C-alpha cells in the first residue's frame, strides 16, 4: 500500500467497532463478501497437538530449541493451553503465598484436564491494529487481521496489546539458527508463504495462502466460495474434527450454522443468551467483554458429573 493509499483508507483499516465503521469494506470484484471465521469444539478437542504440528508444517514456523523456548520465544501460532479443574477450597487460601505446590495439590483432576487451542482470534476490532505505529497490521476485506512482515518495524506494541498473547516475535534470524532448518530440512518449507526475517512480528493468518487459493479458484470459476474449497491446516489435521472454518457471511457454511445455532453474534460484545438463566447453549468467545469482537467461537467442554 502506498502512503497516500494508507492515508486515504486509514479509518477503513482501523475499526474500533465493527458496527460503527460499517463492517467490512467490500472488494467489489467478489461475488459477495467474505468473513472468515472459525469455531472450535472444546468437547471434541483432545489436546493431542496435531493442529499445532500441522501449523508448523504449513506455515514455516521455526523450531527454536530448548534455550529460546525457556525465554518464551516459541513460535507456535497454534498452541494448546492446558488447564486443571479449580480446587474447591476458597481461592484466597492460596493467593497469599501464590504457592503453586499448594494449588497443584488441590487441582481437581477427577474429570481430567481441559485443553484450549489458542490462536489469533482475528478480531474485528483488533487491539493490535490500533497500536501499530506503521500500519503493518490492519484489517483485510475478508475479515482477517493481517500482518505485513516487510512493513513491520518490530516495535512489539501489537503483542503487548494483544489480550490473547498470540503474536510471536522473531528475535533471531531463524534460517541462520542451528535448530531451525539445517540442510535439508529447509527443503520442506512451504513456498506459498515467506520465512519471516529477524525483527518482525508474526501470527496465525487463518492459512492465508489457502484462503487465497480458494478465493482465486472460485473467482476464476465465477462462483461463490464453498465450505469444501478451503480448510486451514489445523482443521484438516484435527483427528476429532473439532475445528470448523469457513465464510461466516455464507448462511450455508458450517461455521455460520454453528454460530447461529449457538446464538453468537459477531458484532455483539455481550450475547443476548448470556442474560437468560436457562440457556442451554455452549458457544462463547474468549474475553468478549474486552470488545475485540473475536472471529473464533469456542464450544464449552461437556462432562458428565454423575459418574
Amino acid at each position, binding site marked *: 500500500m502506498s502512503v497516500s493509499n494508507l492515508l486515504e483508507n486509514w479509518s477503513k483499516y482501523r475499526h474500533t467497532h465493527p458496527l460503527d465503521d460499517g463492517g467490512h469494506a467490500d472488494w467489489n470484484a467478489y461475488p459477495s463478501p467474505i468473513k472468515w471465521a472459525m469455531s472450535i469444539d*472444546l*468437547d*471434541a478437542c*483432545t*489436546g*493431542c*497437538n496435531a493442529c*499445532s*504440528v500441522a501449523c508448523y*508444517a*504449513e506455515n514455516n514456523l521455526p523450531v527454536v*530449541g*530448548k534455550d529460546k*523456548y525457556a525465554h518464551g520465544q*516459541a513460535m507456535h501460532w497454534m498452541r*494448546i*493451553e*492446558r*488447564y*486443571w479443574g*479449580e480446587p474447591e477450597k476458597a*481461592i484466597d487460601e492460596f493467593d497469599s503465598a*501464590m504457592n*503453586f*505446590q499448594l*494449588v*497443584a*495439590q488441590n*487441582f481437581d*483432576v*477427577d*474429570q481430567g*484436564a*481441559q*485443553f484450549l487451542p489458542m490462536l489469533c482470534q482475528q478480531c474485528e476490532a483488533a487491539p493490535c491494529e490500533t497500536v501499530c505505529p506503521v500500519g503493518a497490521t490492519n484489517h483485510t476485506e475478508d475479515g482477517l487481521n493481517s500482518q505485513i512482515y516487510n512493513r513491520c518495524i518490530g516495535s512489539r506494541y501489537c503483542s503487548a496489546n494483544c489480550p490473547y498473547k498470540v503474536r510471536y516475535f522473531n528475535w533471531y534470524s531463524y534460517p541462520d539458527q542451528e535448530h531451525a532448518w*539445517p540442510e535439508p*530440512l*529447509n*527443503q*520442506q518449507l*512451504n*513456498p506459498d508463504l515467506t*520465512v519471516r526475517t529477524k525483527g518482525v512480528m508474526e501470527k496465525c493468518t487463518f492459512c492465508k495462502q489457502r484462503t487465497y487459493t480458494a478465493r482465486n479458484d472460485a473467482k476464476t470459476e465465477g462462483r461463490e466460495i464453498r465450505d469444501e474449497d478451503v480448510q486451514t491446516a489445523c482443521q*484438516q*489435521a484435527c*483427528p*476429532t*474434527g473439532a475445528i470448523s472454518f469457513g465464510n461466516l457471511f455464507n448462511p450455508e457454511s458450517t461455521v455460520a450454522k454453528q454460530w447461529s445455532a449457538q446464538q453468537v453474534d459477531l458484532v455483539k460484545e455481550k450475547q443476548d443468551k448470556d442474560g437468560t438463566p436457562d440457556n*442451554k*447453549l*455452549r458457544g*462463547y468467545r*474468549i474475553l468478549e467483554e474486552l470488545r475485540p469482537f473475536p472471529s473464533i467461537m469456542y464450544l464449552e*467442554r*461437556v*462432562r*458428565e*458429573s*454423575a*459418574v
Partner: protein
Amino acid sequence: MSENGFNRRDFLKTLGWGGTAVALSGCGNTSIEDGAEFVTSYSEPADYVIPSIGVYYNSTCAQCDAGCNITGRVREGRVIKLEGNAASAINHGKTCGLGQAGVQAHYNPDRVTQPKLNGQTVTWEQALAAISEKLAGASGAEVAFLTGGVSGHVRALLDNYLAALGSREHFVYEAVSPAVERAVNTKMYGTAMPRYRIDKARAVVSFGADFLGAWVSPVNFSQQYAKFRKGNRPEGRGVLVQIEPKMTLTGANADRWIAIRPGTEGILALGLINALGAAGVAVPGDAAAAAKDYTTERVSAETGVSADQIGRLATLLKERTPSLVLAGSAAEGYANGSQNAEAIALLNRALGNVGATIETSASTPFPQLAPRVGNRAALTALNDGLAAGKYKVVFTCGTNPVYSAPASLKFADNYAKAGFKVALAQYLDETAQAADLVLPLDSAMEAWATSVPEYMGGEGNYTQLSVTQPLMERLYADTRSTGDILLALLKQRSPDEYSGFEDFYAYLRSALLANKTALGGAGEADDDVFWNVTLSQAIIPLQGVVSKSAPQSAAPALSAPAAADASYPLRLIPSVSASIRDGRHANEPWLQESPDPLTTIVWDSWVEIHPKKAAELGIVEGDIVDVTSKSGTIQTQAYIFPGIHPDAVSMPLGYGHTAMGRYAKGTGANVYSILDAVYDKDTGELALNETSVKISKTDKRVIIVKEEGPAGGSQVNRAKIAVKVSADKVDLSKEV
C-alpha cells in the same frame, strides 16, 4: 490441484531441476536481483505438474504401526506437507502430530546417506560383497534377522530370503508392543485384534488404554471418539471413564478419571462383575464364579477406589449398554498383566459387549502379506542366542534394541558378540552405531512398499492393502528401501529367481499384477490402467477372511500384584507419549518442540510426582532428582503432577538417546535403562510397570522449560477462558 494416475518412473525422471537446482522460494530471500535465480524448468513433465500448484500423491504413513493412509503435497518436486487420505477407512483424511512430522523424518539432517563398513564409506557393491562373504561361512541357524513389525511385500521378500538362507531366526521386536493384548484377546474374544467400536458404545470404561494418544490406532479411535461424544448421535452422548495410575491423554479427556493402585486393575474388573451381578445383571456363570469373592469392600480396600465410586461405575455400566471396556498397557504391564487383561475381558463378556462393540475383524486374504508382529519375548530369545555366541551374522532393521532393551538384559554387550552385524538404518542410532555394516535406508517418502495394518477400521470383513510409494526423488542417491536391499540380497542367493527384477519396484509391480484379479482389478483389461488406479489411490480394498477361534471360558486366576519393596517404595510407570513414542521419533524437531499435552514440557524428560508425595519428599518443581531402581539410576527434573497415583511416579519413554542425531542425542534420560527385567507370566512380554524406584533429591534445581505458566494452568481469578459445563446443563440435540 489434481490426483492422477500416471507413470511413476516418468514422473520421477522429470524432476531433475525441480528437486535440486531450483533456488528455494520461501527461504527468506528478500532481495530482488534479476538474473540471479533459476526458473523452475522441466524437460518433459506430466500434464498435471504445474509450477506453483501442489500435486497430491497418496501413500501410507510409516510413523507408527497404525498405518494411516496419507496424501503428500508436492511442490516443484519437493514433498512439503502430509495430509490424511480422505478415502481411508483407518484415518478418514485425518492425521496426528506424529504423522505430520513424517516430512521431518524424510528431510532429517542426520540421515545416513551412504553405506558404511566399520565406519568407512563404501559402495553398495562392496557392502553387498561383504555380506556375501560373511554369509558364506555361516549356516542358516547362524544368521538372525531382527526387525520391527513387518507386513506386505517386504515381509514376503524377507520370508523368502530367510528361506533361501535356511534360517528360521527371524525375531520381531517392538519396544512398546500390544503383545499382551493380542494374546488375551485371542484367548477371550477369539481374535487377536478385534475392531473396537467406541462410536457405537454408550459408555467406555478404559483401564489405561490411551486410545486418543498412543494406543494401537489413535487417529481412528479419535474419530470414533468424536462421534461417541456427539449429543445428536442415536445412542446419545457417550460417557468415558478412565482408570489408570498415571493420567494419559485419554484420561485427561474422561468424564471421570480414577487413580487406581498400580496393578490392581483386574481386581476392580472382577469387583465390577460382582457388583453388576448383585445389581441384577445376568452375568454368565464362569464370570460370576470368577468374581464371587470380589466384594465391593475387598475391591475397594485393594484398589484404593472408593466403594461409592465402584457402585457408580456398576450403575453406569448397567444403564448404558452397549458399553465397551478396554485394557491398555497401564493394566497389562505387570507380572500379572495377562490376568488383569483377562479379568477386564471377562467384564466385557459379562456385559455382553463381545459382538456389539467388540467386533471380530477380518484378516487379509493373502496370509503371506499379513503383519508379523512381535514382542519382548523375541528380543529375549535373540539376546540369549547372542549371549551364547550362536550368531555369525545378525541383521537389524526398523528397531533399535541397543537403546530400548532394558539394561538388565545387557543387550549391547551380547550384540557385540555377534560375528558380523548389519544394520539397515535411516539414522546412525545406537544399534547402527554398534553395527559393523550400516546400510542407509530410504525414508518412507522415497520408498516402495506395501503394508497391511494390524488394526483395521471400516465395517464387516473389510480389509486393505496399503501402498507406500515415493512422493519425490531420493534426497540422497545412495539410499535404498528395505525391499531393494532384500531383493539385492536375494539375488545373491537365488539369482535365477530374482535377477529379472531390476529393483523392488519391478518386483512389486509384477507381484501385484500377477494377482490383479484377486486384488479387485478383474475389470481392468490393461495392466497399466490397474497399476495407475492402484497408485493413485494407494489403497487396495479387499474382502478379508473372518476366522474366529472359540474363546476360552476359563476364568482367570488372578494373582495379587507384588508387594512394594520398602527400599524402592514408588512404582515407576513409563509413559508412551503420542509424539516421541518408543524413541524412534526423537530426532524430529517438531515433536521435541511440541509440548507434552499434560505437563506441557518440551525438549527434555521429567518425572511426574504427585503433589502430596512431593511435599513428603521435600521436592518442588524443577528439582533434579535421582530416579533409582534395582537396575540403575537416571537423573531428571521433577514435575509436580496432580494426575498420578501418590504411590507412583511416571517418566516418558523415548528420550535420552546417546546417538541418532542432533535433536535426539542428550535430550532427556532413557527410562529403558532402569527397567527391571520382569515379564508377564503368561506371554513373556516385558512388564513395563513392574519397576519400583526411589526418588532422591540432588542439590540442583532448574526452571522447567514448558508451555504452561508459573500458575501451572490455573484459571484462578480469571475470566472465562477454557470453560467446562456439566452435561445436564446443555442441550446438545440441536447442534450443527
